[in-house]
Each structure stands twice: as C-alpha cells, then as structure tokens.
C-alpha cells in the first residue's frame, strides 16, 4: 500500500520470515513500517496502535509522545478523526489522569478578581463551534534540506477538527480584564521533568485573545478530547500554528507587560523575512514569534511513482487550507508549473478548515510526469515554488510535487 509520500511495507515485518534481524528489532506492537520519504533518511517509522484512545499512528517518539497522522487519513475527508489526530508534547510529565469533578481553570493576574472555574462553570458560558486546522510549526520538518534537528515529521503533524467550546473572551470576562493588560499567558497541566526547566507556556496579545474567535474547546468532532490531545480543555487559536493551542489548559494569566518566557522569546521564533526563509548558516537575522499559518495543499489519492493510464481521465483529489484565511482556489499543473488548471472545491466548512478539492486530469504523453498542487488563499497569498529554509524547520509551504508514471 502506498499513499501520499509514504510507503507502507507490511511485508518487511509480517511476511518475510527470513528477516530475523528486522523482526528482532521491532516489538510485537509495531504492526507495520512506514517510510516517510525524508531526504537522506532515516525515514522508517513504526505504525503503532498501543497509545490510549489512538488508532494506527506513526511513532516519532514515545516519551514524551510524538505521534504523526498516517497520510492516507487525509484522503478520507476534511475532518481528522480524534483517534488518528497527531500528538505532540514538549515535556515528559504530561497529564495522564483528569477528574472532571476536581479540575479547575484559574484566571488571574491583571484582572479585577481571580476566578477558579469548574468544567461546569466553563460549559455554562455561551457555546461556540468552529472547524479549524491545527498544524505543528514544524510540520514537514523532515523534508527540509539541509536537514535540521527536531521532530522529524513528514506532512502528518496537522489535523482538522470541529471544535466545540467557549470564547476565551467570555472566560476572561468572568475575571474582568483590567485596563493596561498587554498579553494573556496560557499554561497547561504538563510540567518540566526537571524542576528548574522552563514550564511550557504561550501568550497571545490581549486584543487577539479577546477577538471572539480564540476559544477554549471541550470537544473535538463532537466528543471529549483524547487526553493526549489536551483533555479536558484546549486553547483553539484559529489560523495560528499549534504551538499556541495549549493543551490541558488550566491556568490563564493576564499580563501587564509582554511575556518574555523562554517559549515566547527564544523557542518558536522565526526569521522576520518573507516565508521565514534564510540561507543555511545566515546569522544576524531579526527573530519574531511564529504566528499565522500560510496556505498549503496536498494530493491525497495519488502516491509517488504511481502509474496513471495514458489518455484516460484520472480523478485527482486532495485537501488544501488557506492558513489564517480561507481557500480561494487550488490549481494543478502537470507540466512543471507552465500551466495550471483550477480544481473544483468541495464543501466550505469555514475559512480555517481543510477544504477538499478534485480535478479530472488526462495525461496523453507517456513517461515520467510531475503533478504539482498550489493553493491561493482569499488574501491572495500563494504557495511558493521554492522551499523555505530556517534552522528550526518551521513554516514549510512550498508547492508539493508528486512524480507519476504515465503508461
């Protein structure tokens, strides 16, 4: 089986009785191997099914868990199932037990009164619902060249869900934000392994936090969140990278000065250049906190080096998202970008959602061809032809290309 840029090779583990070395190196729960196509390798990963509330996932790291969504999941629809939604934690001390009766969300700092809200209190606030893509800042990092250290994701550290919850603004209003507030700092139940390590916290500017779109979700796709995805409450920052989507949110602090904690000031910063792009080795660049997402699009039903019949229409389909705004159009090229054909867009689930697209193509000339897919968002921002590079492997959104064999 071979989908997207990955190749499933069950025979390597399940069928080749002679491969004693391989069998010995793979635990019984590693059901199959996926190859992520990362340049220079290593690109073999186990598909595992033993993480709680999770179906088959690509194991990037077990502790703290980094689980990638197998790419074929994105062909099934615009909403990523909770049991295959990717997982990413920073510190190994993650919440493994939450009692819904005892859980409290604190709001304190530059406010009129500190409040401690039960889940019942939170759920009593006006309910809102929104479809939104959650994408790791480093999604596709493993495809950077030259390669950079960090989680070596292929394209599966992203997902789209319908989030149900309350506006952050309404939660802040329970405490009453004082004038002079500058930022809102979000903290979850995860903790550093070492006591003096920097606790993972993220901040949003006060106007952003109160824009009525940023929300606190208690459900994804109609169900409570898996613990590994941030049960019981997760911050939703539509259009922004997932680093801000604090999981197991338990503490909100209103600040009267900008947050200079490590996770804002140093980590998750990008070069302040177009596409966060610099040359390898380039120094002296102004760095800013990563923020809005950029448009991306993928073919989901044609694998690399798949054979397509000459002279016969092939229905090509996939997903796209606009980043911090909607998808305006998705175009496909089969002539290395010389000409582009507009794809038909699927149902609009909201501007922050994945959007499906499809297009019948007929390739007449036999031989090797490349299919390229390109999203333009409603602000006119378009995917670049050249990949960006930065030392953290952030914000990849180059036009994706898939080689096919016309025969």
């Amino acid at each position, binding site marked *: 089986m071979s989908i997207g840029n990955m190749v499933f090779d069950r025979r390597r583990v399940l069928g080749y009785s002679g491969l004693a070395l391989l069998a010995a190196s793979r635990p019984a729960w590693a059901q199959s191997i996926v190859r992520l196509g990362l340049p220079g390798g290593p690109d073999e990963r186990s598909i595992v099914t033993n993480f709680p509330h999770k179906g088959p996932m690509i194991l990037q790291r077990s502790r703290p868990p980094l689980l990638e969504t197998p790419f074929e999941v994105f062909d099934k629809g615009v909403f990523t199932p909770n049991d295959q939604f990717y997982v990413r934690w920073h510190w190994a001390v993650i919440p*493994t037990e*939450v009692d819904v009766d005892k859980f409290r969300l604190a709001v304190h700092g530059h406010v009129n009164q500190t409040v401690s809200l039960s889940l*019942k209190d939170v759920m009593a606030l006006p309910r809102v619902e929104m479809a939104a893509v959650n994408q790791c800042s480093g999604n596709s990092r493993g495809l950077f060249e030259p390669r950079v250290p960090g989680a070596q994701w292929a394209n599966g550290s992203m997902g789209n869900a319908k989030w149900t919850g309350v506006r952050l603004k309404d939660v802040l209003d329970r405490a009453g934000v004082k004038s002079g507030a500058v930022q809102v700092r979000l903290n979850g139940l995860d903790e550093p392994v070492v006591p003096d390590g920097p606790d993972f916290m993220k901040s949003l500017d006060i106007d952003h936090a109160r824009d009525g779109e940023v929300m606190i979700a208690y459900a994804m796709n*109609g169900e*409570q969140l898996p613990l*590994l995805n941030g049960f019981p409450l997760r911050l939703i920052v539509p259009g922004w990278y997932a680093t801000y989507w604090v999981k197991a949110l338990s503490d909100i602090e209103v600040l009267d000065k900008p947050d200079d904690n490590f996770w804002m000031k140093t980590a998750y910063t990008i070069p302040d250049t177009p596409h966060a792009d610099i040359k390898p080795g380039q120094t002296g660049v102004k760095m800013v906190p990563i923020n809005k997402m950029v448009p991306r699009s993928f073919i989901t039903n044609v694998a690399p080096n798949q054979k397509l019949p000459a002279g016969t229409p092939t229905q090509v389909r996939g997903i796209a998202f606009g980043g911090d705004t909607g998808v305006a159009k998705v175009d496909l090229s089969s002539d290395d970008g010389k000409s582009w054909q507009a794809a038909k867009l699927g149902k609009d689930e909201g501007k922050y959602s994945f959007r499906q697209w499809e297009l019948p193509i007929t390739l007449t000339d036999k031989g090797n061809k490349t299919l390229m897919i390109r999203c333009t968002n409603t602000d006119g921002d378009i995917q670049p032809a050249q990949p960006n590079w930065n030392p953290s492997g952030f914000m990849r959104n180059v036009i994706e290309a898939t080689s096919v064999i016309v025969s």
Partner: protein
Amino acid sequence: MQRTIFLPLLLFAFAAPNIAGAQTLTLKSDSIDVPDRATMFTGPGSDVVNNNCVACHSAGMILTQPKLPEATWKAEAEKMIHVYKAPVDDKDVPAIVDYLTKLKAAP
C-alpha cells in the same frame, strides 16, 4: 498496558438551542497509561548517552534524527543543559557529542 478508568460522571446539558445539532455532551474523567518504548543506545560510548539523555526523552528522538554535523550536536547538547536544565556533567559533553556525531543513522 492500556487502562482506562471511568470515574463518577458529571452531566452537563447545553442551553444553546440556537446552535444546530446542539446535544448534551458529557465529559468523563479519564486516566491513561502511556506506553514507553524502552530503547537504549548501544555500542562503544553508549553508556554516557544512556546515563544522560533518556531521563527526559526516549532514545527514539535521537535515533530518528538525520546525520548532523558535530557543531549541531554540540549546540543541541548545550541547549539541553542550559535551557532545559538537563543535569549533565560538563565533562560528559565531549563524549556525548562524539557518540551522536558518529551515530550511524537507522534506516
């Protein structure tokens, strides 16, 4: 390995009839065990890496990294010590960096 405990439930009903498909959502207490793949580093010089690196993250994090230059591994080690406060003895750093730089990437 996997264990899910359902503690006493609380029922919360939504009062939001204006939203299509509004339904009662019940949050249930949850408890999980997260599996750990207890892979260790092997070969000459692996002791110092096992002793210093796997307390905070599993070996898989390192074994999935691409081939990286010595300077990059040194910067990673320094980051672990000075930013993430990993209790690593300074005298161990050269041996750790040496092991990681020579690490033969898995397939």
